[in-house]
Each structure stands twice: as C-alpha cells, then as structure tokens.
C-alpha cells in the first residue's frame, strides 16, 4: 500500500503555516529565556511582586488590627452626642489600595453637628501622602509596562541592525508568519514569568489566615488578572510598533521611554488637573467651615428662642444635608469629567478597573457618603435621645462591598472594552508595521 500523500503544496522540509508560527514563537521565547535582559527582568519582577505582596499584606494586617481596636471603642456610652461608626478595610485593598485609606476610618454621626470624619491613621506620618502605595496596581501600572517595553523595543529594529531580519525574510517564511510568531513568542516571554510569579505571590498570601479569599474575591482577582494581561499586551504591542517604525533600536528605546512616562504618569495627572478646570471641585475647607457655622447658628437661635438643645436639630440637619448634597454634586461632576479625560491613558483605565474591582474606587466612596447620610437619617430619633444616662436602641452601621454585578454596571465594562480595543488596535498596528518594515 502506498503511503497516504500529504497536501500537494506541503513538503517534508516545511512545516504547515501554523506550525511554523509556533516554531518561530518558540525560538523567540527560547532566545529571550537565555538573554541577560530576561534574567534581570525576571529577578526584578520577582523582587517587586514579592516585596509589594509582603508590604501591602502587612499594611492590611495593621489596618485590620486598628479596625478591631476601633470597633471595640466605638460602642456608644451614655453622655455622648452621637454614634461612632467604623468602616472596615477592604480585603482586596492589598492589591489595589485606592481610596481605602480615605474610607476605612472612624466617623462620628451626630444629630447636632453632622458627620465628622476622624483622622486617618497615615496622617501621623506625612510621607504616606507624598508617595503612592506600592501595591500590585502600582507595580503593574508603572513597572511591568516598562518591562514589557524593554522586551519589545529591539524586536524588529534589533534584528534589522544585526542583519538577521534580511536572512529570515529570504527564507520561505512569510512576513505574516514571522510577525505573528515573534509577537507571540515575545509576549509569552513577558507574560509567562509574570503569571508564574503572580500566582506564587498570590498562593503565599492566600495561605495567610487574615486573607481568606472567597469565591467572590477570587473572581475579582481573575478579572484583575485579565486586565493586567490586556495591559501588558498593550504595552508590548506599542513597543513592537515603535521598534518597527524607528530607525534604530536605541532611538526606539528613547522614544518608548518618554512615551511611557507620558502615558503612565503625565496623562492621568494632567487630565485630572484639566478636569478640575472644567468642573472646579468644591473646597473641603469651605465645606468644613460651613458645617461648623450651621451648628453654631442653629444652637444660638434655639437658645435665643428658649428652645431645647434638640430644638436646633431640625434646622441644622436641613442645612447640613443640603451642604453635603451640593458638595457631592460638584465633586461628582469633577470626577466624571476627570474619568472621561483620563481614559485616554491605559494606565488610568487600569487604575479604574483595579480600584473598582477591589471596592476601593470612586464609586465605592460615593456609596460610603450616601450610606453614612442614610444611617444618620435612619437613626435620627436615637441620636436625638442619647444623653447622660440613656443610650436608646439604634441600628448597626453596615457597609458591605459593592456586588460584582453592580461594579459592572458602574462602568468597569466600559473600561475593559477600552483596554481590550486599544490592545487589539496596537497589536494589529504592530503586525502591520512589521509587514511593511524595510529590512535594509
């Protein structure tokens, strides 16, 4: 029996097109695995992820300790003018601290002078205010993007300089296959070690008793991981694109470095400042002064009109609620325009995705304000009655994290779509630029 003949166009020496792509990808990956750059980058990644995991986990532990101390102290005693409520640190703030530090403190809720936020734990050491927290979000946003660029900047221009590009292109390999193979191989060289390291750090953290992750948290983490992969692909593709367009690999590197600084740091910050120009945020100092004045005025008027202390509450609360409402409306207008502007930068989009998924984002802070105001009005009767000898029945303050479905409705889906589309566009751009590259 004669052997079955294969496809007439294929020969023994040539692999089928997809096999060829895999072969190129594997060669690219192996090349990276043996390079100094790869080793240095992997060591850096390991150190950064490990350090960040350790430091942020310990920080969370400290905040949880403070939280339990505060919760113990928060029980109302006779003679108080209000109730103290404490907001629990969010579990996933270990990975994206976001606004957690702003939210997880004590609040005194009163009928006579509104809601007073207590000092933040970090306000004692102002260094915290100067430098961003080194959480996973920061490491991925600022440093992993840089590593992705370092893997990509000489992918085309380096081969062109060495003359190997001409050699490869003169073989039977098509440009499309070469482009696909090299991009996939290079991407794998960044993503695989990152995945391995990330999972190792995660495994180390979840075995800790304080950090018991449920299925909800794991789903959120999986979504964060998806966002990270999209983000890394985006920067890698950008690197290849510039590498294919630039004259030399060193000029590609220089252009990419400054582009990186612009995208990661400049655009979100400048965008935010521009949003403040469009919709100026209300001054916290002014709001604070007006709250105090409302208290002084209403008590003064009540005394002048021979009304009791409780007689001043209604007037005060009308004034105070309006003040908070007005403040929040202006703040939200500013935050909305800031969000729209900053989305130009994938780094900002990643920040929104991470903080929203970790329940440490802008939407969660809005929710907290509403929850506290609702708590005040629900307990108004008890707040009015509490005195030297008597603590009336009151409801406990509950503030569970926003549900995942709700998080999606708040705009995370849009952020994901933007990130995916930008990555896809840049990936296509990189392939096209590769196809058109002049190998001379």
């Amino acid at each position, binding site marked *: 029996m004669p052997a079955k003949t294969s496809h007439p166009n294929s020969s023994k020496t040539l692999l089928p097109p997809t096999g060829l792509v895999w072969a190129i990808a594997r060669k690219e990956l192996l090349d990276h695995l043996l390079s100094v750059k790869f080793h240095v980058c992997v060591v850096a990644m390991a150190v950064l992820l490990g350090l960040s995991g350790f430091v942020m986990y310990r920080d969370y532990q400290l905040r949880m300790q403070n939280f339990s101390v505060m919760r113990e102290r928060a029980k109302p005693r006779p003679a108080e003018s209000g109730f103290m409520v404490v907001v629990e640190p969010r579990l996933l703030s270990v990975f994206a601290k976001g606004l957690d530090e702003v939210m997880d403190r004590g609040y005194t809720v009163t009928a006579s002078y509104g809601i007073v936020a207590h000092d933040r*734990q970090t306000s004692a050491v102002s260094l915290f205010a*100067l*430098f961003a927290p080194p959480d996973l979000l920061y490491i991925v946003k600022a440093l992993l993007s840089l590593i992705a660029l370092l893997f990509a900047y000489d992918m085309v221009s380096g081969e062109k300089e060495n003359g190997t590009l001409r050699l490869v292109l003169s073989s039977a390999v098509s440009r499309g296959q070469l482009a696909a193979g090299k991009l996939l191989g290079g991407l794998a060289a960044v993503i695989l070690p990152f995945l391995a390291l990330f999972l190792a750090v995660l495994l180390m953290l979840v075995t800790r008793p304080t950090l018991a992750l449920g299925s909800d948290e794991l789903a959120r983490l999986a979504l964060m991981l998806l966002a990270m992969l999209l983000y890394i692909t985006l920067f890698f593709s950008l690197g290849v694109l510039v590498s294919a367009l630039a004259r030399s690999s060193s000029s590609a590197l220089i252009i990419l470095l400054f582009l990186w600084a612009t995208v990661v740091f400049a655009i979100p910050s400048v965008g935010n400042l521009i949003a403040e120009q469009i919709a100026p945020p209300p001054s916290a100092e002014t709001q*604070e002064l007006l709250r*105090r004045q409302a*208290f002084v005025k209403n008590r003064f008027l009540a005394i002048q009109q021979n009304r009791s202390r409780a007689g001043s509450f209604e007037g005060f609360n009308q004034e105070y609620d309006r003040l908070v409402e007005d403040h929040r409306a202006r703040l939200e207008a500013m935050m909305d325009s800031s969000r729209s502007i900053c989305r130009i930068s994938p780094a900002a989009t990643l920040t929104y995705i991470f903080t929203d998924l970790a329940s440490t984002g802008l939407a969660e802070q809005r929710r907290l304000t509403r929850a506290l105001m609702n708590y005040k009005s629900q307990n108004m009767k008890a707040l009015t009655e509490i005195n030297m000898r008597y603590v009336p029945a009151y409801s406990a303050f509950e503030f569970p994290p926003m549900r995942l479905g709700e998080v999606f409705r708040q705009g995370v889906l849009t952020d994901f779509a933007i990130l995916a589309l930008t990555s896809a566009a840049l990936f296509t751009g990189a392939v096209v630029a590769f196809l058109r590259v002049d190998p001379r």
Partner: protein
Amino acid sequence: MFVELVLKELRDHLLSLRFQVGLLLALVLVSVSAFVLSAQYSRENRDFFARHQQLEDFLGKYAHLNRVGGLIRPSRPPSPLVLVRGLPNDAGTETLEENPMPNLFPPVDLASVVAIVFSLLSIVLGFDAINSEKERGTLRLVLVSRLRRFEILAAKWTGGALVLVVALLAAWLAGMAIVLVQSGTHWSRDDALSLLAVWAVSLLYCGSFFTLALAFSAIFTRSSVSVLTSLFAWVLLVFVIPNISPYLAAQVVRVPSIAALQRDLQYVTSEERDNLGREGSSRAVEKLGCVWLSTHSMECPAGSGGRQGATGKVTLEFQDLDQPSEALKRRIEGDPAFRRFYEQLRKEIESVWTEVNRRQSEKAERMEEAWRSRAQGQFRLSKGLSCASPLPPFIYASTELSLTGFATREQFEQQAGAYERAFGDYLWARYHAEQAKNPAFSVDDFLNMSTRPRFTYVPPRFSERLAEILPFAGMLAGWTLASFVVSVVGFLRFDVR
C-alpha cells in the same frame, strides 16, 4: 583641548534625538502644569478670601463664647510658589467627602516633572557616554590625545551637566513666565530666591542621576548592558525606595490606632473626668453632712456650719453652685450661717473639680505625648529609609522651599497654636468685660468679637528655608560625588580594546 571636548559633548547632546525628545516632553508638561496650577492657585486664593469675609459676616450675627472655638481656626493662604504642590493642606480632613482624585493620580507639578522626566533624561544622556565611544571605536582615538583619562571623563561630565543646566533653565523660565502671566501673583524677594534654590536642587538631583549613568557606562563595556542597569537603578531609586519606605517603617515602629487614641482622649477628658468629679464631690460634701440624691442634686442640712439643731433640709441642684436660684439667693443673703455653709460647699466642690480637671488633662497629655513620640519615631525612620534614594531629599527640599513641606507645616502649626492661645485670652477678657457690665450675661449670649486679633501667617524667611534644606542638598551632592568617584575608578580600569 579640555574646553573643546566639553563643547563637543555639549553640541552632540543638544543635537541628539534623545535630548530633543526628552526636553520637548518636559517643556510641554511643565507648561501645561504651570497653566493649570496657576488657575488652581487663583481659585484657591479666591476661596481663601471669600471664606474670611463670610466668617466675618457670620460672627457679626451669631458669635457667642460657648461654641465659637471651632470656627476661628487659623489657616494659611495657598503658597504663591505654585509650581511645587507638596503636602496637601490638612485643614479639611474632618469633611465627610474630600476630593479623592489626588489619591488615585498624584498631581503633576514642576517637582514631579523633574523627579521623573528630567531624571530619565539625565539617565538617557549618560548611560552610554563612555562605552558607546568604545563600540564606535572612537575611544582609542580620544585616548591617544594629550588628555589624561580623568580629564576626558571630567569633560564628558561637564558637557552633560551643562546640558542639564540649559534644559532645567528652559523649563524654569517657561514655568515661571506662565505662572506670572496667568495667576498675576507677586513673588517676594524670598520667594524668587526660593525658586532659584529649587532650580539648584533640581540640578543637583538630575546631576546625581546623570553621574550614576556615567558610572555605569564606565563600568560596563557594552552599552546594551549599561542601559538596562541604569534603567533598573532608576526604577529602584525613583519608583520603589520612596514608596516602600513608609510601609517598611510602619512595620518596624508601630503607631497605635489614632482613632482609638482620639476616642480614649475624649473618654479621659469628658466621661471619666465627670465620673471622678462627681465621686470626689460626693466625698467632699459628705464631710459637710450632705447626701447626694442623684447626679444632679443633693440634700444638705439647712443649718449646717453654725446654728444648733436642723430646722429643715435643703435640696440643692448641682447648678445652684454656679447660678443660685432666686429663692436660694434670698436664703443666702438672709442667713449668714447658711451663707458660710454655702461658700464652704462651693469651695470644696470647686477644688475637687479643679484637681480632677488638672489630673485628667495631664493624663490626656501623657497619652497624646506617648502616641506622638511613636508617630515621630515612625516618621523619622521612614524619612531616613527613603533618603537611600536621591528622589526623596529632592522632594523634601523643593517642597520646603515652596512652603508646602513638613517643616513649614510644623512652623505653621506653632504659629496657629500661639494664635489660638491669644484668641482664647481675648475671648475670656471680652466675656468678663461684658459680665462686669451685665451680671446676667451668659456664655450663650451674643458677644461682639470684631476687635479680636486676626491671624496672619508669617512664612519662614529664605535663610530659614535654606537652613532647612541644606542637609538634603548635601545628600544630593554626596550622591553625585560618590557616583563620580565610581565613574573615575571605572574609567581608569576601562579596557579600551
């Protein structure tokens, strides 16, 4: 020859793509941030004065001694040196909802552009200064000239440093021009000198990164290796060490919960004090033969302290000791024995409360002091750890010079404390003066405060600011010097083949 080499380096850098791209980006960022920061300054300044005017109007209508303390809080106007933002103004932290954006994206200003973009530019200018010449084969050529290796290195360093001088000068001029035109602010002589000092500190900071990259280019013979090493060093120094040090320090020196402290202080100075005061008072009055009926009233023998035999008991409200009722006043006036008893009772109770108040406020002070010293310890440690990188000393120095740093805040707090004491004295003096005119005048009655002392913030003079930043400038110079020594040693051992 040396000068020629310096000029050649300068020319090469100025015409290079990397310099032009970097400078362009830096200038765009400085200009945009100067525009928005000036507008922000004008807005904050308007808010500041509007707040003052509003407070004046308010006090004209509703001022009274009892609750006015929370309103008269010293505040300082926004710093006219708008190009460096520094620490946020902390006066509004009790607000329910603050602007959260700076927590998510640290705002861009001149200091952050220098900290990131200019330091990157410095690294990019220096990382292949020596080894690329070897790769091109020009290093051998240079070495056959009359110049010694040290002189060649010095010439390369001087050329690079001059480029940084030019680049930073361009950024400063652009930023300052925009701020002056946009915000219409006036800089005093001290402010102008401070701006110049920020420029000098920036130069030292960029110089330290340039010299570090130069050292790598003299140690590694291949520029592809030195670029990676320089970049990783840069990432470590700019993005890792500053951010991680406060968190590491927090692990070493623990600061107990501030919320728990505030809660405990409130307990010690109010409820615990009241309980102790009542206990002490009840013991004191028992000596005089009185019996407490409740926390508000007591029963005393009517004729105590003189006449034999009680003719009937008197129920005294606690507040009778401060403001006796009309019936009681008549009794005191008409019955000398009862008056003596009443005076004695008042004196006993007053001394108990004075003692309890003193003890409790001392206790509170001790608790606060213990907490503060822990917090100070953590602050000092994290500041010390962070100074392992040149970025934090640069940030500390530039914020201090721009009146938005730690020391400036502390100095403001001292001034604010002194003012609050002076205002408290004024307030009581005014109250007693009103009471002298009208004995029925109470702490809840309208009290005209228009003659009160006004708080004016006195910023530190330039010489004080300079003294504050000298250690930081010294650290930056030390970085540059150490890197330079390393590059000299590296270059002397450099294999040119």
